[in-house]
């Protein structure tokens, strides 16, 4: 979340149960505040200068003073809130409650829960079209988006997408919605207001986070499975080039004052800052450097028994190692 006027970026540090404020010009942390367990997204409400986090494992929203990091309130919402949406004009903050399959609506001024919307299992990221008052909630485990009215909270429909939708963002002109589909590794383009998928483009690997540039020309796609950001032409959907960032990038945003791209890397616990991300870089390697080479030997503890297992146990066998994280 970028606050260009205050020259700050706000980053949810999910594994540390904290939010950090970063000075955009000095690239330095200026404050750090404890919130609930496993905060995932952050939104800023400019009129009140309040930050809202969705604390997935606490079933809460923590509200902070954006200037000091001081805690304002903590509210109970639905089960496992993993995404947020924000309608500044209607004074609403929404949580996508993954485990309960609901959206909880919070009044941004009174900080009271004002209602819930029935979504589907895996409810998470929410994009809000302030012009039309329509909101779009991705449902990770249901391969769909739930559409609802952000003012009345009335459900308006369902848009089917591919498996594992993680984030939805609106095009600046409000005529399209982009959705990362993490399991097939694609980015869908949904035409608005009709709500029909009109295009789909491949991303590199396990795309989760997404940002559309203010001029509507570029989509920045965080490939959590590859440690890269794909720069896609928003008009055609085609990937133009890739930027190597940190491990397991989860989401990104652009500082509109400088055009710099900020990428939060969940695996590395770092923030990557990319100057002029739209400029093409070097071509990616055709094959991973480990391919064709002997697997380095390992000696690692078993998560259930504690016994150390070594690669020698799998000698002369064909096998697959899946590298994963719980977050």
């Amino acid at each position: 979340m970028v606050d260009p006027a205050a020259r700050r970026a706000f980053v949810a540090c999910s594994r540390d149960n904290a939010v950090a404020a970063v000075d955009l010009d000095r690239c330095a942390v200026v404050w750090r505040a404890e919130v609930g367990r496993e905060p995932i997204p952050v939104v800023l409400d400019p009129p009140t200068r309040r930050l809202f986090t969705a604390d997935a494992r606490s079933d809460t929203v923590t509200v902070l003073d954006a200037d000091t990091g001081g805690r304002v309130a903590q509210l109970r919402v639905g089960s496992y809130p993993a995404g947020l949406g924000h309608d500044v004009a209607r004074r609403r903050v929404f949580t996508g409650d993954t485990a309960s399959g609901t959206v909880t609506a919070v009044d941004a001024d009174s900080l009271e829960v004002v209602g819930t919307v029935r979504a589907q299992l895996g409810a998470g990221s929410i994009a809000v079209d302030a012009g039309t008052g329509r909101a779009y909630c991705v449902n990770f485990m249901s391969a769909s988006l739930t559409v609802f009215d952000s003012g009345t909270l009335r459900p308006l429909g369902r848009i089917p997408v591919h498996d594992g939708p993680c984030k939805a963002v609106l095009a600046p002109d409000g005529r399209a919605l982009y959705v990362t589909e993490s399991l097939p590794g694609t980015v869908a383009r949904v035409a608005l207001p009709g709500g029909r998928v009109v295009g789909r483009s491949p991303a590199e690997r396990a795309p989760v986070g997404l940002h559309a540039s203010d001029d509507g020309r570029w989509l920045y796609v965080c490939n959590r499975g590859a440690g890269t950001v794909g720069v896609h032409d928003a008009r055609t959907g085609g990937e133009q080039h890739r930027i190597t960032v940190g491990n397991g990038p989860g989401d990104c945003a652009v500082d509109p004052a400088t055009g710099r791209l900020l990428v939060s890397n969940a695996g590395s616990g770092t923030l990557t800052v990319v100057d002029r991300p739209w400029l093409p870089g070097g071509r990616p390697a055709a094959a991973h450097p480990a391919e064709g080479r002997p697997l380095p030997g390992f000696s690692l503890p078993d998560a259930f028994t504690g016994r150390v297992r070594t690669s020698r146990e799998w000698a002369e066998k064909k096998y697959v190692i899946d590298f994963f994280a719980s977050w």
Partner: protein
Amino acid sequence: MINVWESVDATQEVRDFCRVWGIEGTVLLDETGEYAARLGITGVPTNVLVGADGVVRRVGATTPTELHAAVDALLDED
């Protein structure tokens, strides 16, 4: 499976994760991420396919289609 970059209470996190998602089989902990770094792993999930000669055949293959094709190719090797 090898768990990486967990950073906080990795053993419990992995056990909970496997229970929730019904994962069975061998699950190892690379808490420091050192082994992943040696292999050049930069994201999750990532699959690494290894041949009977111990040589890495493929890194990536995360979608079901890619994984099935890569496993088929590995099994077809003499």
